[in-house]
């Protein structure tokens, strides 16, 4: 029904998609899997008309389809749920669903009552309790995702594209979503489903396309594949080598968090990370993991509790105090939090160290450049010039710059939030090796990750969060997929 052929797309130096093909059939649910940064979302955006492909063709029912903008895609009957919700915070939920397609009455006026009623109907169908009149501002990630799903459903689309719609949803909500998706499929729509959860992929989809590093790898019927097959194709090698965990001597408590609470985000979180230890903080998206470490690092405030580094309390709400105490945070959102995209590699890499690099309060080009070159070389950052803006680097290299920037501060406690999000397989292994080495050198590492293999492969201990609370503390030898998932979904024994 919808066929993509030879699609390529690059962003500056980053080749996000290379010669990708994809074929969706009416009445079929199709899964698209691949590692972070494999190019799935980029493909989705091309389908949605948000990005124009550099090369390649799209045909729908045999007719060539040119999508200049999202409106074209919509007109072609393609409904998209983006990975990052795209809601208008100031507008009501109902308006968010029907923006541009609001039901009309006489004189082409918007029929607000009808709109509200239809929104309520959609929510009923999805089994969620949301007031159509409330503004989107303040919705939880899960609720935002549900509004996005309702938006896509409201189209009666011929093609429904869902980019990780379930990442933030609970089991019941996922079931409802699947029921809706199946009914759409049975009514003759084509469904494209993207997820990192293989159980869902196999439960919903008939065929699976695997992508790696922006390239198409395979398309097969789900019945012919096992999870192991899919993972092998995604990663391109055996998973084991991805996690070169070294045993390190575990020393004194480096980072202690006691009873940390921030109203509306997390409650009474306490844990300790020792030198030489890698502690993973696991949980579903939206469980509050990032919020906790942001508060620990001082970029967010917290209401009560305390944070100690080497036994000394840390001044709250000051990232520079945290840096001074030897903390480093590699944030989850590289573009928004990790890097200043318009500034050069050099400036980014030396930003947290700008005071220590200065002499008499003055910064001379030389010291910054030397420091930047030093760490870029160690991490093998591929950049034409250190003076180039980081935005011209590929995703993986950008992530390396973030790592370089923090490792250069020689932290005693390294906090990493989704450290391998959006970087290629090779780099991923390098990052893991690096974390291992650092732990071996006595650094305390706290790692937030949504990727279970990474959590299980790297951590000495797994902390699991559920709805803003610490739900479990599982030592390495007891941690497995099941125990972590149970705790993360709130079914743990604690």
């Amino acid at each position: 029904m919808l066929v993509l052929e030879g699609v390529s797309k690059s962003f500056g130096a980053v080749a996000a998609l290379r010669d990708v093909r994809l074929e969706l059939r009416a009445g079929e649910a199709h899964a698209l899997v691949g590692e972070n940064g494999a190019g799935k979302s980029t493909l989705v955006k091309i389908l949605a008309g948000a990005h124009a492909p550099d090369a390649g063709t799209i045909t729908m029912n045999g007719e060539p389809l040119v999508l200049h903008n999202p409106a074209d895609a919509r007109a072609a009957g393609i409904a998209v749920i983006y990975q990052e919700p795209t809601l208008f915070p100031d507008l009501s939920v109902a308006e968010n669903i029907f923006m541009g397609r609001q039901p009309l009455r006489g004189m082409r006026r918007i029929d607000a009552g009808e709109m509200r009623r239809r929104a309520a109907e959609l929510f009923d169908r999805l089994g969620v309790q949301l007031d159509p009149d409330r503004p989107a501002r303040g919705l939880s990630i899960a609720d935002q995702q549900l509004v996005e799903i309702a938006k896509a459903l409201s189209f009666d689309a011929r093609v429904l594209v869902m980019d990780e719609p379930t990442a933030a949803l609970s089991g019941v909500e996922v079931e409802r979503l699947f029921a809706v998706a199946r009914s759409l499929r049975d009514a003759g729509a084509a469904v494209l489903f993207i997820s990192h959860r293989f159980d869902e992929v196999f439960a919903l989809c008939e065929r699976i396309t695997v992508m790696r590093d922006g390239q198409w790898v395979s398309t097969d019927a789900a019945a012919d594949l096992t999870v192991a097959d899919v993972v092998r194709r995604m990663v391109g090698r055996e998973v084991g080598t991805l996690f070169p965990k070294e045993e390190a001597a575990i020393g004194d408590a480096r980072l202690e968090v006691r009873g940390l609470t921030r109203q509306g985000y997390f409650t009474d979180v306490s844990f300790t990370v020792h030198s030489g230890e890698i502690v993973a903080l696991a949980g579903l998206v939206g469980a509050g993991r990032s919020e906790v470490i942001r508060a620990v690092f001082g970029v967010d405030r917290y209401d009560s509790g305390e944070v100690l580094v080497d036994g000394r309390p840390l001044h709250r709400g000051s990232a520079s105090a945290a840096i001074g105490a030897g903390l480093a945070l590699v944030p989850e959102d590289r573009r928004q939090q990790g890097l200043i995209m318009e500034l050069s590699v050099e400036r980014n890499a030396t930003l947290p160290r700008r005071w220590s690099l200065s002499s008499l309060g003055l910064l001379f080009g030389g010291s910054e450049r030397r420091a930047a070159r030093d760490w870029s070389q160690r991490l093998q950052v591929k950049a034409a010039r250190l003076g180039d803006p980081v935005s011209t680097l590929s995703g993986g290299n950008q992530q390396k710059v973030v790592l370089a920037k923090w490792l250069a501060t020689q932290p005693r406690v390294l906090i990493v939030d989704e450290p391998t999000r959006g970087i290629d397989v090779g780099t991923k292994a390098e990052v893991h090796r690096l974390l291992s080495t650092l732990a071996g050198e006595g650094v305390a590492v706290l790692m937030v990750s949504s990727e279970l293999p990474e959590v299980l492969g790297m951590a000495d201990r797994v902390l699991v969060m559920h709805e803003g609370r610490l739900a479990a503390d599982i030592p390495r030898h007891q941690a497995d997929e099941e125990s972590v998932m149970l705790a993360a979904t709130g079914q743990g024994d604690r």
Partner: protein
Amino acid sequence: MTAVDTAAPPRTARATRLTHRVFLVRELGIVAALVLLIGATAISNHRFLSAQSVKDLLLGATILAILATGQAIVVITRNVDLSVGSVLGLSAFATGTLFLDHPGIPIPVVLVAGAALGAVCGAVNGALIAAARVPALVVTLGTLYVFRGIDYRWATGKQINAADIPRSFLHMGTNTVLGVPILTLFALVVVLCAGFYLRSYRSGRELYAIGSDPAAARLSGIAVGRRVFFAFVTCGALAGLAGVLYVARFGTLDANAGLGQELNVVAAVVVGGVAIFGGSGSVYGAALGAMLLTTIGSALPVLGVTPFWQRAAVGALILAAIGLDRALSVRVTKSLQRGVHQ
């Protein structure tokens, strides 16, 4: 409606009610301030509420209210138009010149011509901003100078006086219908139409969406550039219309009509509860804000406060208004979040 009520669980419904109340409160707040101000002034000076005085209050607010309506439309899209004062001046002078050159010209033609000239100015702004993708603040600061300069060059050595303007047109500036000045009826129609459009039409709602999150608006298939362009054209057209009405009201005019108005207009919009970063607020609020600002201007002298306090009062009012908006939005956000997280 019942479907909604049953669908909405109590906890979010409470938060929603609060939001509604807040938005209502925001506009009612201005009305209350206005009533308080007029009441206090009337108590200290009875003439302040005579028919003539009310008429003058309304007349005084008319032009600012029309400008504020146009400005609100632009600000809602997360832009700003600083050139409105200059556009008003240009259109006012054009109106005078029209009467001078074509003494018998019908009034509706003049109204349309003024608005059209304004629309052209707005189109210049909008084209630069939407097509060349340059920030509105800088572009309209530039056109503020350019339009005014053109106005000056055109007006050098010329002057338009009450004697050059047809009586019927000047009567439009002073006459009333049921106690309401005709000019104010213009403003009322403009505000109601704009408010109705922004509320009830898809393209109107899209303006809010653009201001709320421009990137999301693009992803939702909204023609952002085109909408922003037309917001500027509308704002320009309204400034042009205001220019024509300015002539009707003041009769005499030189090239300085509307000089420095831009800050008053932005102030009225901000006081009226339109968020300076777009996405929320209404033209009703903006018009009420204009009304409040001009009423303060007339009330202070009557209250015996030296006019020197007037500007300071306006400044304090702006700060109070944005501070209040901030406090309200923090409260609403908190309550909405609590609504979700128990």
